[in-house]
């Protein structure tokens, strides 16, 4: 709590409103000290004067000093706010605690009433309550307090319910501790934060209502001033003295603004205390990029991106992500090619950077992630790095189609499947609505969706995962791209549907002579689907080659370990081999090989410096290992 307070007063959003509210409280406590005149002293020699050294904000129709009346009004504002919010707290918190704790019928009935009253026009209900209680500021504020109690009932009840659902509460109940003592011990300390925030925001709202009621003459009675009643008087006085509506109006605005800003700042501070600090991450961005540039080495024995058959060529791809300490490299110096009509696998564990690589190729990286501008991604002869969003839009769909991991989340829930499927046809293909619908049905039929014509009218939530992935596939095919990027297209599906979708993808690639970049963590799938594969580890491509050679004789110790961990039905050994340790995070830097700390073969030489991809004797095979010449499974003749 103390550190929260410190964080609050060190930010402008915290201390500026606090200073204003402290000034206000001082004025309310000692108005005579701050004011220059008696607030109600009429002076008929100085009626409706403009601002002067004597009367800073001028005078009203009775010659009373506007500044002093404004200062004295602050007491009404403060007292009224405390009365109303105090009433709301006293009524709302116990009722909320009770219904949240009691639950059942109590909860249902009270919350029904609260919801009902909440939906009615508040100001008009306040009128009704004032009509019963009679005019006067205290009555009016109690009326407002009763209405605001509803907010506190809702808030307190919600907090009780959320605590009740915590697993440790259930555990404590099972161990026999009475519910109310557990709730009390855990709930009370956690309630202060949200309650303080709600109180602050309620004070702002109450102040506006108090001003409105006073403005209507339903609050404080003459001659005492409030900001609302000063504004009321200003309506008829502003013609003769235009300054009159400004001081009370600004006083209300600043005070409400201060309460709201304080509420926002409090919420931020409390949220930071609980969770991570997102903003700190952004600061290091520029510094990190510069460091990256210095550390980056570009020596690379790349395959030449030549030949008429090369469709996609990625060279020296670096993708950086923001972290707490600056920018880290999530993808490091990755290079590979995809030939026309070829299926290339991108394999690795979670965190290896394979999905980020795929998204980078399509220019679809999430916010915050960035491709290093020195990288090169050429597709069909066009350089994609540095393209604007609208230039990229010209490549996506028609050139590169995408299939995503979670098909149900990747379809728009608010639009029919038919609309989403017909959209690229109408926009890229220039088809009419009916022609596009016809073609969409054909596409659905092609990917094996039953009753395609009826299903076009359905919404995504009416589809199962497997069928949704077929729809996504149809959508990727719609504009007849020459490359499909499939990002773990079967991971979210049932085992039985996985196989069907895989077969469909391979079949489509053959029939339509499309190339595919297939991202997966499953080596079995790679063996089944791909012509060539790129094995990725901790952001780097550690080995590339044709699938046959890769499986027969993996060269990099990581590929070997990965292959060894695939359970085989006909294996002699029942033991499931795993790789110890975990994939290093993008911001973890090593002097040498990034796999060394998990590698069984690691030697001193591995730690000495960065390791680059080296070509092996086998044509088209590359490996990133210093031991590759001495490694036991070294790629000799197979």
């Amino acid at each position: 709590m103390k550190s929260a307070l410190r964080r609050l007063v060190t930010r402008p959003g915290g201390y500026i409103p606090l200073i204003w509210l402290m000034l206000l409280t001082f004025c309310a406590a000692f108005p005579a000290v701050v004011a220059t005149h008696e607030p109600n002293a009429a002076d008929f020699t100085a009626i409706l004067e403009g601002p002067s050294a004597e009367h800073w904000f001028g005078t009203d129709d009775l010659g009373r000093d506007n500044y002093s009346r404004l200062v004295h009004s602050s007491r009404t504002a403060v007292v009224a706010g405390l009365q109303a919010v105090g009433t709301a707290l006293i009524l709302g918190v116990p009722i909320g605690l009770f219904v949240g704790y009691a639950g059942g019928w109590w909860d249902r009935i009270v919350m029904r009433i609260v919801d009902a009253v909440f939906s009615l026009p508040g100001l008009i209900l306040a009128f009704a309550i004032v009509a019963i209680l009679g005019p006067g500021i205290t009555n009016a504020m109690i009326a407002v307090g009763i209405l605001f109690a509803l907010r506190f009932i809702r808030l307190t009840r919600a907090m009780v319910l959320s605590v009740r659902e915590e697993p440790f509460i259930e555990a404590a109940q099972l161990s026999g501790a009475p519910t109310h003592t557990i709730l009390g011990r855990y709930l009370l300390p956690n309630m202060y934060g949200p309650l303080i925030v709600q109180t602050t925001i309620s004070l702002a709202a109450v102040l506006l209502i108090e001003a409105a009621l006073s403005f209507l003459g339903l609050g404080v009675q003459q001659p005492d001033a409030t900001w609302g009643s000063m504004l009321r008087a200003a309506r008829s006085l502003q013609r003769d003295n235009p300054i009159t509506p400004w001081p009370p109006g600004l006083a209300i605005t600043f005070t409400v603004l201060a309460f709201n800003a304080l509420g926002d700042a409090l919420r931020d501070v409390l949220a930071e205390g609980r969770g991570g600090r997102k903003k700190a991450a952004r600061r290091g961005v520029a510094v990190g990029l510069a460091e990256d540039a210095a550390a980056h080495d570009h020596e690379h024995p790349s395959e030449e991106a030549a030949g008429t058959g090369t469709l996609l060529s990625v060279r020296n791809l670096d993708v950086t992500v923001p972290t707490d300490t600056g920018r880290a490299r999530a993808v490091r110096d990755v290079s590979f090619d995809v030939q026309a009509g070829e299926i290339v696998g991108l394999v690795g564990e979670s965190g290896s950077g394979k999905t980020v690589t795929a998204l980078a190729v399509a220019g679809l990286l999430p916010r915050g992630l960035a491709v290093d501008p020195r990288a090169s991604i050429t597709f069909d002869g066009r350089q994609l790095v540095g393209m604007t969003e609208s230039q990229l839009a010209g490549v996506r769909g028609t050139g590169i189609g995408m299939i995503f991991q979670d098909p149900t989340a990747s379809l728009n829930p608010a639009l029919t499947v038919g609309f989403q499927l017909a959209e690229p046809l109408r926009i890229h293909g220039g088809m009419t609505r009916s022609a596009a619908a016809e073609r969409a049905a054909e596409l659905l039929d092609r990917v094996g969706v039953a009753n395609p014509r009826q299903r076009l009218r359905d919404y995504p939530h009416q589809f199962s995962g497997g069928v949704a992935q077929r729809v996504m596939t149809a959508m990727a095919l719609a504009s007849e791209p020459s490359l499909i990027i499939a990002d773990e297209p079967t991971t979210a599906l049932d085992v039985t549907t996985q196989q069907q979708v895989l077969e469909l993808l391979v079949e489509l690639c053959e029939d339509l002579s499309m190339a595919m970049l297939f991202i997966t963590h499953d080596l079995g799938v790679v063996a089944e689907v791909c012509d060539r594969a790129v094995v990725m580890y901790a952001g780097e491509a550690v080995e590339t080659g044709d699938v046959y050679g890769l499986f027969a004789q993996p060269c990099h110790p990581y590929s070997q370990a990965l292959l060894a961990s695939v359970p085989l039905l006909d294996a002699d050994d029942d033991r499931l081999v795993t790789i110890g340790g975990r994939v290093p995070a993008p911001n973890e830097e090593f002097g040498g090989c990034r796999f060394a700390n998990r590698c069984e073969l690691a030697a001193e030489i591995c730690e000495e410096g960065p390791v680059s991809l080296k070509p092996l004797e086998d044509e088209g095979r590359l490996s990133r290992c210093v031991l590759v010449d001495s490694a036991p499974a070294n790629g000799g003749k197979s």
Partner: protein
Amino acid sequence: MVRTFAYRLAAAVPLAVLVSFLAFGLVHLIPGSASETILGDGATLEAVAELDRQLGLDRPLHEQYWNWVTDAVRGDLGRSVITSRHVSDTLIERYPVTLSVAGGGLLVAVAIGVAGGTVAALRQGRLTDRLISLGTATGLAVPNFWVAVLLAFYVGVQLGWLPAVGYVGPTESLFEWVKHLIMPSIALGLGSAAVVARQMRGGLLDVLDRPYITAARAKGLRYRRVVVVHAMKNAFIPVVTVIGFQASVMLGGAVLVELIFGMPGIGVQVVGAVLSQDLPVVQGVVMVASLTVIVMNVLIDMSYAYFDPRVRLA
């Protein structure tokens, strides 16, 4: 469509009954009786008892409620204690004015709020976003009646661009009607526009991070189309909830704002009635305003089905 509307309206009946309890209860919470208010301080006990009998105030409470509620359903909300006019006549004459102002305010709130929130989301973190967030913070803090006072004086009186006072019905002159409504609607709508803008910005930012937006971009659609066709409809779902709530805020605020622009709505009546404890008028206004909000909420509920197809089957 009509059937859904009727069904939802029927589902709102319990809420309407609750409101009628509240409105009826008003009279009986007050010390003394309506007869005393009518006859004044000098009335004899016999005279009060006689008037009580005439007004039916000596009957059991449930009987009084039943009589009141059956009369109300037939459109008879009783007579003003002060002027003896039928409350329903007053409402029929004046309520359309208040509704016009509230509707105008809501229109301003939605138009400015949705536009501002969308621009802020698309320019997240940039200068435009900061300026809009400053604008919404101010919009939330500025009292609508102060804006009304300033607009009426500076734009209405000094510049003379728009009428500072009065009201012309739409049947008389559509053009004049709109002209008289511009300033009240702006004064009333700015605060709610800030609320709508905040929700719109947050909702749109949330939606823009969803996988289906990436998928839409992957189809090669222009970003403008992705935002307008794929993001807006989803981002609107929480905004609709906020708009529903603001509709009720607008109705309360309209009473205040129409007073300042000298419009013949229910504002003058209701403030006068509150001050003189003219309860039949207060009752009538509470009833009618609440029922308006209830109908409004039914419409809002129905609009969810358009924005979120998952609601349709439920």
